[in-house]
Every structure is written in C-alpha cells, then in structure tokens.
C-alpha cells in the first residue's frame, strides 16, 4: 500500500461528498429493491392499472409537454393550464392517440379543461378519493413521464394553501438613500426580465407605472402586485437623462434560480408553482412534464392532481376536492 492510498483513507470524506461516494459501492442494495426499484413497483400492480387508465400524455410537435387526467367517460381531461399551451394530441397508455381541443382555463387553480376528440369511444375516468385532506405518510403513486411505469413516494407534509408569488423585474436594488431621486439598481440578473427590456446596473428607478418611488419597499410592492407575464413600465434616470422601459415580469423563483443552490440541485422545475387554494405535498421524483396527471393512493383513488414540480424533494398536487370543484366550474 503506498502513501496515497493511505492518505485517501485518512482524509476519507473530508473534501466533499464525492470522496464518500467513491468509497461506497461494495454491498449496495440492488436497484430493483430500492424505493423506486422494479421489485418494489411490482407490488403496486393494482394501483398501476388505475394510474394507466386515467393518465394521458399531451403532445405538441411530437414532444411531451404535460400529462392530463381523464375525468369523464366522454373524454374530458383536466391538465395544468400554464403547461398545456399548444397541446395537439393525447396519447393513452395503450399507445392510442387522439386529437384534443382546449375548452376552458381556470386561472385560480391553473387547471384547464380539454376534450379528447373521439366519437363513440368510452374512456375510463379517474376515481376520486373521498379523503378531503389525506393523512401524511401514505403511499403516493403516479405514472412516470413515458406512461410506461410508476413513480412512488409518500404524502410528505401538511395540506395547505400556497400563497401567490408576485412577478419580478430581476434586479437587485440598492439601499434607500444611496441615490438621489429614486432607488439605484445594484445588480441586473442576466437574461432576466429587466435585462431583456434594457435596464442597466446603475440606473436609478424613479417611477413604476407612473407612480413616483422613493424607497425600495415601494418598488417591490408595486411590482409584486402584478403577476409574472404582466407588463410594467419602469422609469429610470441614466446619465442625467430619463428613460422609460416596458418590462414583462418574470417568475421570482425562476429569475433568482442562479442564486439558489437548492434549485440548482433540483433539475428542471415548474414555472408556476404558487397561488394554489389547497395542495398536498409529496416526494415523487417527477419532472415538470409529468404534471397534470393524477396522484393516487395505494387503493388507486386519486387524492390529487400533480400541479408543480417545486424542487428535488417537493411536488405539489391540487387536492381531489379542489380539482373536482374546478372541474364543475370549467364544465358549466
């Protein structure tokens, strides 16, 4: 044994997680026995049938954009409104493909109602759970993105409402009093809304939508009262001249992603992940394009509709009750 091997033993684990991971592999638990392994998933045969019957893949230009949930025999679908734009066809688990039309959207829940165009075809709608607020620790099951297998996990937190998150310009403001006549922009987030519109570091913000601003808080409040996607006019002073910019606001979490290590470690996340009336939280490893489908309990009953991939431990699902109420409104 040479001294470098000895060294690696002694500094074992001290440098980074990577060193540790190199040291482990001898007696790993086989992949099939793990939480999302093949053997474990086999025990979910009953649930799988229910998941496959009521989940569809929504396709645009040959690409999966989001999942959907079959809610009636006639082929009505619920899906995530902000993710289903341009959906042309619905593909079922058996590979059958049908054209779809969008009927209505519900901004409050971010749900959309779609119709599968298939005459004389009877579909198997999702069976809703009567459990209004399902207890944590219960199994949660959804179809995987390809609708070939399952992803499993548990109901992992207290059901709750998720507050609205206002839009952002994507700049970091300086302290009050650092600039005369307004608030200086200390940093501009590259490629974010403000940068795209033309705002620059050092600009002094004087007005938001025509209203004069003197303090940081005023800017944050005025901008935050608008939603992502809204256009806000920002007036600034640069080199003693006044400029006005039209900024299409961005999402807070997406805009500041580069500063958030947790989000960097989470892979792709959903754009809209706020402002839901009531959600349940689970730990299923699903990508954003697998939102819109049902999440089932162990008995194959839908306890919710997957609505937002939030980070690597969190997915929000609208509760069955909220989804059914929204469906009623949409189908009126």
């Amino acid at each position, binding site marked *: 044994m040479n001294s470098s091997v000895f060294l690696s033993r002694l500094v074992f684990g001290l440098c980074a997680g990577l060193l540790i991971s190199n040291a482990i592999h001898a007696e790993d638990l086989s992949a099939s026995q793990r939480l999302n392994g093949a053997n474990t998933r086999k025990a979910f045969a009953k649930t799988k049938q229910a998941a496959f019957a009521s989940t569809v893949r929504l396709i645009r230009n040959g690409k999966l954009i989001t999942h959907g949930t079959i809610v009636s025999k006639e082929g009505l679908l619920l899906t995530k409104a902000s993710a289903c734009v341009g959906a042309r066809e619905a593909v079922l688990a058996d590979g059958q493909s049908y054209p779809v039309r969008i009927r209505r959207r519900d901004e409050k829940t971010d749900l959309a109602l779609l119709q599968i165009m298939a005459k004389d075809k009877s579909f198997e709608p999702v069976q809703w759970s009567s459990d209004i607020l399902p207890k944590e620790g219960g199994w949660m099951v959804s179809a995987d993105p390809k609708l070939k297998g399952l992803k499993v996990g548990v109901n992992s937190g207290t059901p709750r409402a998720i507050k609205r998150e206002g839009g952002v310009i994507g700049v970091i403001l300086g302290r009050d009093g650092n600039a005369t006549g307004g608030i200086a922009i200390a940093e501009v987030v590259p490629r974010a809304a403000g940068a795209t519109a033309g705002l620059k570091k050092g600009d002094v913000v004087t007005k938001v939508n025509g209203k004069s601003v003197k303090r940081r808080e005023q800017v944050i409040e005025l901008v935050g009262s608008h939603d992502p996607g809204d256009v806000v006019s920002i007036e600034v002073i640069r080199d003693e001249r006044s400029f006005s910019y039209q900024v299409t606001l961005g999402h807070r979490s997406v805009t500041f992603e580069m500063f958030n290590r947790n989000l960097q470690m989470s892979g792709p996340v959903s754009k809209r992940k706020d402002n839901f009336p009531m959600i349940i939280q689970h730990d299923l490893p699903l990508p954003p394009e697998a939102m819109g489908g049902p999440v089932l309990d*162990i008995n194959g009953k839908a306890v919710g509709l997957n609505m937002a991939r939030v980070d690597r431990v969190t997915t929000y699902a609208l509760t069955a009750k909220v989804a059914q109420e929204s469906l009623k409104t949409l189908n009126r």
Partner: protein
Amino acid sequence: MQLAAMSLCLKADELKAWEKPFPENHEDLIAIQERLRKILPEAKKAVVAIESGGGAGSGVIVSEDGIVLTAAHVIGKRGKRVKVRLPDGKRVNAITLGGSEISDAGMAEITDEGGWPVAPMAARGSSKIGDWCFALGHPGGFDKERGIIVRLGRIIAKEDETIQTDSRLLGGDSGGPLFDFNGRVIGIHSRISKKDDQNFHAPIEAFHANWKSFREEKLLTQSSLREGGFLGVGCEETEDGLKVIEVVEDSVAKKARFRVGDIIVKVNGDFIDTREELTIAIATTGPGKSVIIDYRRGEKEMTAKVKLGKRPEFEEESEE
C-alpha cells in the same frame, strides 16, 4: 418436503412487510404505510430547525436536558450561539458543541431551562443495508404552515463513517434525523449527491463513538485536521479492535515503533474503537504535544508515550 414447505410458510408469516427483501403485494404496502403513519407523529416531536446567522439546518433532540444531534457542517464552529426552533415554531437558545467533519456528525445543546421532547437513538450496529427508513427535516428552511417533511427510503449502502439512502434530501435538511421503522434515530442528514436518490447521512454510530469528545466541544474540521497533531498510522476497524494497517515512513508512529497488526486500545486513557475517534483524539491535540497510547501486539499489552508530529503535506492534496 411438505414439512419444509410449511416451515417456510411460517417463517414468511413472521417477517414483517418491511423486513422482507422487498414488499411483495398490496398487503405488504399497506403494512408499510400503517407502520410509517404509526411512528411518524412521535418521531416528529423532537425534530428541530437550527438557525445561525444566515444559514439554517435541521437537528433532533435526543436527551431531555437538550442535547441536539445535527451535522458538523451545520454547527461550523464550537461554542457558537444559535437558535433552535421547535416544531411549533418556538425559538430557544442553544450553543454548538463538538463534531467531526469525517462523518459530519455534530452536536449542540439547548441552554434554556426546560424538559425537551426526545427521539430515541438506535444502538450501535442496529441498522443495515436494505432497512426501510424515513428522513425528517426542514428542506429549504423552517416553514410553520408546511411543518416537518417526511421522505421514505431504504438504506442502499453503509460504511463505517456514512450511510447512504434513497430518501430524498435538500439543503436545510442537513442535520435532520434519519429514522428506522422502530422509530429510532439511525443517522443524521449530511450531504446530497447529484442523483436525488443517493444521499448521505452520518451514522448514529459516529455519535456513540465520539459522545465524550463532542460534549467536550472537540470539533474536527478540515483545517483543524491539517493543523492538528499527526501520528502516522493508517487503521482499519476490525472485530479485534482498531488495527494498524499502515505505518507512514518518517512519522512519529514509525519512531515509536508501531507495527502493522498492532491494535490501538486507548488514547490518553479513553477507549478507541473507530478510525474517526482516533483521528479526533490525535488531530485535536496539537503537534509537539504528547499522547499516551495503549495498544496490543498479539497477546502483549503495550503503552507508548508519543510526541505528535506535524501532518506532512501530501502532493495529492495540492491540486485543491
């Protein structure tokens, strides 16, 4: 033949769903769900968030007088004042004690008066590969409305200084407890890997082994390891004890005539069973200071007084 088949059936009946190699059917899954739901409320009571400056982590209270297990990288420094947040959101004062960045085990103590909710610690060696487990903590920071977050998984690998599971973790979970299906703490969340189903935990064994030195605020960090004393032995944990498998040339261990095969028993009168304990005992003693080492060579009990050296700079480290 018939008998054998019957006894096999009986044996299978005795195994709980979570003790099988994997759940075999719907009933096994229900049993796992019911078990988790049964032990979860009690387990959550002792889970805390730790706030220090801008950073936040998690922890778990394991003694009524307020000893909190967490991660070494959460406490950072010893003797530092931090806030501990109980599940109901109440903040209490605490102080950081010791830890070790080898396993990433760390300790703090609540300084306010009061009896605290506790989670039982698993005994040494009571967890193994394949065990079902669940992670608790405050991913992304404390959120009263959301509460403590549970994630299910299994132990996928275990080594002396680390446990690996497929329970999902996020920043803010660091220091939070990993529970077994008997409701006992078997590990503390340490590091995440790029793959979300391969995360790392400091094993409870690291706390058992280093309890005294952690309580005495001994904290082994990368820099304290670099600047601390150096003996010059490489060891392996064996059934017989901590066995020397390498003696570094030109080290004080070589001068003191340590040999491959010697079993290290005590340092300064304290029993030593693990590599981490030895490293802490040596590195938290400065170069030039002496330690008394009791060791065994075959049947012979021996004692050596060794003046510790300085850690040599290895070329392999220079690329950092």
